[in-house]
Structure formats: structure tokens, C-alpha cells
């Protein structure tokens, strides 16, 4: 059974293509197009990992990550954005993400980080 991923990004073309490539590699992928939907999907499906865009309509990425982390502190979250993630002093919710990636990103790098995030999440989860 592949990992269950939740992708949230308003750039449909991008996120759909990415999801299809992941599915080709046996990931179970759910795609949503805004932050609020992402919260809902995460609550009902409890994915192994969430990939969030930073700037989305409805609920922005940093707000979404805050809420998700509140509900599921162990759930690994990766930020993927066309902008530069900003975290000046470590207080922003951005710092709670496992990684903050800038588009465009080589697919195999992305997959490697996803794998690493899930692995680490399980390790810490076990440790707790």
C-alpha cells in the first residue's frame, strides 16, 4: 500500500499533473484547491503527509499549517510554493513545516523529501 498524500494548491494545472505522476508511482493522492478544503480533507482522511502551497485563496498556507499542526502535531507537512518562504525569526507557522520547497522542483527531489518526511514522522511517532 502506497503512502496517502494530500496536495493543496490553487495552481490546478500544476497540482493535477504532480498528483498524476505520484499516482503512477503508487501513491494514494488526494488533491484540493484551497486551504479550507485541505483542512477538511485532512480531518476526514488523515493522510500520511500534506503538501501545502503558501498562497491560496480562502485559507492561506501558513494559517492552514497552524491549524493542522494544532490538530495533528505528528502529521508531516511540506510547503511548496512559487514564492520564497519567509521566516525571519522562527515564530511563523512556516517553521513548523518539515520542509519549505520552492517551485519549480525536480520531481525526484520532491519524492525523496516526501519519503524522508514520512520516515521521520514515523520515527518520532514511534519514539513518543
Amino acid at each position: 500500500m502506497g503512502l496517502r498524500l494530500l496536495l493543496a494548491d490553487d495552481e490546478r494545472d500544476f497540482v493535477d499533473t504532480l498528483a498524476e505522476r505520484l499516482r503512477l508511482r503508487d501513491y494514494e493522492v488526494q488533491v484540493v484547491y484551497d486551504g479550507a478544503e485541505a483542512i477538511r480533507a485532512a480531518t476526514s482522511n488523515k493522510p500520511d503527509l500534506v503538501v501545502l502551497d503558501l498562497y491560496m485563496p480562502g485559507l492561506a498556507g501558513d494559517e492552514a499549517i497552524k491549524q493542522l499542526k494544532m490538530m495533528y502535531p505528528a502529521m508531516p507537512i511540506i510547503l511548496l510554493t512559487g514564492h520564497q518562504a519567509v521566516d525571519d525569526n522562527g515564530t511563523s507557522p512556516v517553521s513548523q513545516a518539515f520542509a519549505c520547497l520552492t517551485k519549480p522542483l525536480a520531481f525526484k527531489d520532491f519524492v525523496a523529501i516526501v519519503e524522508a518526511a514520512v520516515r521521520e514522522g514515523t520515527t518520532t511517532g514511534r519514539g513518543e
Partner: protein
Amino acid sequence: MLDRLKAYFARAFEVPDAVSPARYETLKRLMTVLMVTVSVAPLLILTFISHSQYMQTLEGEMENPLESLARKTQAALELYLGERVSTVSFMAHAYHLQTLSDEHTLNRIFLALKSQYQGFVDMGLVDKTGRQIAYVGPYQLKGADYAGKQWLKDTEIRGRYISPAFLGYRGYPHLVIAVHRLEENGAEWTLRVATDTLRLQQIAVPDGKSRDTDVFLVDNQGVLQTDSILYGKALEKIPFQLPHALHDTEIIRKEGDDGRMYLMALCTIEGTDFRLVTIKPVDTAFRPWLALRAELLWVIFGGIALIVIVSNLLMRHLVDRLRASDERRVAVFAQMEHNQKLSSIGRLAAGVAHEVNNPLAVILEKAGLAQDLLTMNKIGGDEKEKQTLVKLLQGIESTVERARGITHRLLGFARRMEVSRQALHIEEVIEETLGFLEREARNRGVLLEADFPEPLPELISDRGQLQQVFLNLIGNALDAQAEFRGKTNEARFIRIRGVTEGQCISVTVADNGKGMSQEVLRHIFEPFYSTKKNKGTGLGMFITYGIVQKLGGHITVESTEGEGTTFTVVLPLTPPDVSGEA
């Protein structure tokens, strides 16, 4: 005329706003003229006031002795003449006609008179009819008829009379003192005594007296009674009309025939028609002053010359300072403008990068998916054709990769990244950086030298960012050496040297590579400006510049084409924003 003058001055003193040599020339001229005017004007006014004040005082100083001399001489003359008249009057009253008619008696009296008083020449007794009935003296004047003579009439009217000087029979100037006598018995007669004017002369001009003052007596006809230095001997007429005189001394200014100015004291002599004139030329009194004035004039002109020279030098110095400060200001403004420009270009570039990143990501993913479909055999077809398509798609991927490199570096410049501050030694950072580049330098035959003549103090900065800066600078220097084929016989080197400069550390990276033209220097810190044709992104120096700015320092470059390039990075020991954060 006035308008033209005004226009001339407006033109001469109009200070152009533009920073140009003319502006400073005009400014200097204006300030010099102002300063000279302000300092010379009071000097001249003071000089003028002092001069006229001094002249006034000097005239007063001159008038006073003149007046006192006139008064003294007047008193002496009045005393002398009064005494003579009183003596004659006494004789006329002491003796009767009978007594005096006797020439023996008359002679005895005359001799007694002569023994007491000098200057008496002869003596005669004139009866009512005007005939001289008795006479004593050196001339044969007995029986002379004076009937109808003016002096006799005057004597009869006034009782006593002093005549003006005249030559008469005697041949030298003398005057007559006459006293009229009306006896109780009705006898009427006149006693007349002649006296020479030598005594008057002696009283008026005592021997040994300074000869620059002319003192003489004039009668009411303007005839000299005593010798004058200026106007000739006694009995000559003076060449000008004497003004009316009073007994009180009066001082008059008068221009002489020789063009000189004279001061004249004028007064009458009591009991006579004489006027005493005391004359002194003005310039004799002013001679010492004139000599002094010539010297003072030299001093004043010298002073003015000195003021002009000093003002000129001072203003030149001041204006030069002003010009230097203006130029500095202009340079600072230019620098600020440059910084502003780079910063806005940076923001713009970052904005573009943001926007380009999303479509790039889409392209990358689509190409990736297409590849996946091909390689995972989801699509049928000729294996060879599939390989061709995969190659094409890989081409797209690598191109996107290249574009990604550009946008990521742009973002790297623009983002307000967290600068990690730590205390570090810049020598260590540079040595580390050199470690990365050593192999490449050796391959290219370039000598890398790091020189720190003194131990440098600790610096609070960002290690990673500094590494990036020196990596860029030294890497560029290596490239400059690689492309340079000019002086092959000269050892090629890159010298890094760090020194302390006050509260900063200054690091220079110097190479003897190909150098840069002015045109390149002007644009070197701008983004997308590259001289490396296809190799560079044109962002290296732009990012270096941004990092150094962010670390609170500044970077400058000097270069000569064909000689080499020197970059200087100056970093503060403590960045300006650190104290506020801590």
C-alpha cells in the same frame, strides 16, 4: 547709465544654481567684494572723520596762539601810545602858554621828555591861528603854518590826536601826537610832538620772534604804519581792502595772492585809527600734519591692500571648501541613487521570478508526466521514437532547470532572509573559501595569496553569506585571469589582503587579470549584466553587492583594462542593526 550699472552688477554677482566653475567664481567674487566693502568702508569712514576732526582741532590750536599774540600786541601798543599821549597831555596841562612859548623852557621840557622816553623827535607849539610859535627839534619849523590842516582840526575837536605815520619834512616815518588846550583865560593852543614809528615796530615785532607770523599796523586808509613781511615797508599801501575791525580780536580766513591760505587776526588800537593785523599762513601750522598724513595714507592703502589680499585668499579657501563639500554631496547623492536603482531592480527581478516560478513548475511537471507515460509504457509506439521523445522532454526539463537557477538566485537576492549573526574571524572564512578554489587556481596556474599583516578583530556577521561574497569575487578574479592572454611572462596572481580600518575591516581582492572598461565598471553591480557571454547569469556581482549591503558594509571596485582589478569590501565589526535587535 544707472540701469546699465545695475545690470552690470546683477550680471557680475548672479550666482548660478548649477554646480559649475562659474558658480564658484561668482560666489568668490561676491563674497570677496562684500568682505572688502564691509571691512574697508568703516576704515575709510573712520579715517575721514578723524581727519576732519583733527583738522578742526588743528585750526583751533592755530587760532588760539594767533589770537593771544594779537591781544598781547594790542595791549602793548595801547599801553605805549596811551603813555605817550598822557605824557604830552600832562605837559600841556602842567604849563601855560607863556611858559611853553619860551623856547628855552620848551627845550628844557623836551630834553627832560627825551631823557625819559625814547623816540620823540621834535616838539612844537601851535597857536590858535595855526602858526607854530615855538619849536624844538632838528628842523627849522618855527613859523610853519598849519592853519586849516586836518590834523589840527581833529585835535581841536577831540582834544587829543594821534596821526597816521607819514614822512613829512623829516624823511622817515613818524607820527604826531597832538593835544589841544583851552586855558581858563581863553588862550587856545595845541602842543604837538613827533615820534618815530621805530618803537611801534619793535613792540609789534619783538626781536627774536618767529618770523612766520606777520604783525603790522594799518591806518584806516590801508597804509602800513609798521613794516610788514608780506606787504612791504611802512607807508606802503596794502594790496587788499581790510574788513571793518572791532576792538575785540576777530579771526578771519583769507586766501593770499600766492594762493596760500592765511589766518588773520584783526583788532583796533584804542584811541587811534590803527588796526592791528596778525597774519599767519595756514600751511606752516599744517606742515607736520601733512608729513604725518602722507605716512598715514601709506598705512591706509597698505591696510586696504592687505584686506583685499586676505579676503581674496580667505574666500578662495572657503569657496574651495564649499566646492569640495558640494562635490562630496553630489557624489553621495549619486551613490544613493545608484543604491536605490539597484534595490528597485532587485525588487522587480524578484517579483518577476515569483511569477515565472509557477508556470515553470507546470512545464516541468507536464514534461515529467509525459516522460513517465513514455517510460512506463502507458503509451504504445515505436521504441526508437519514444526514445527521441524522452530526449526532447529531458531537454525541456534541463531548460526549466536552468531557468529555475536564475529565478532562485533572484529570489535569494531579494528575500529578507534570516541573517544568522555570529562572531567570526574573517581570515578563517577566507581561508575556507580559498580551500574551495585552490584546485581550480592551481589548474589555471594562478597564485592565490592571502595576506593579513595584523591579527584582525572578531567580526559579527554571517559566515555563509561572507563565503558567498568571497567565492564570487575570487571566482570572478580567476575567470578574469583565464580569459587574459596579455602578459604571459608575468606570474598571474590573486591577492587577498585584510586590514582593520577604524570600526571596520577592509578586505581587498586584487588580480592582475584583464581588467574592466569604464563601461563594464558602470554596470558591474547591475543584475543580468555579464561579460561572460553564455557562461554567466549576470547575477553574481549583483548578489554579492546585495549581501554586502545587507551585512552593513559596502563594496567598491577599481580596475584598469589590461592591468587588473581590485575589489574592496568594507565590513563593520558590528552590523548597524545588531545592537537594536539584541
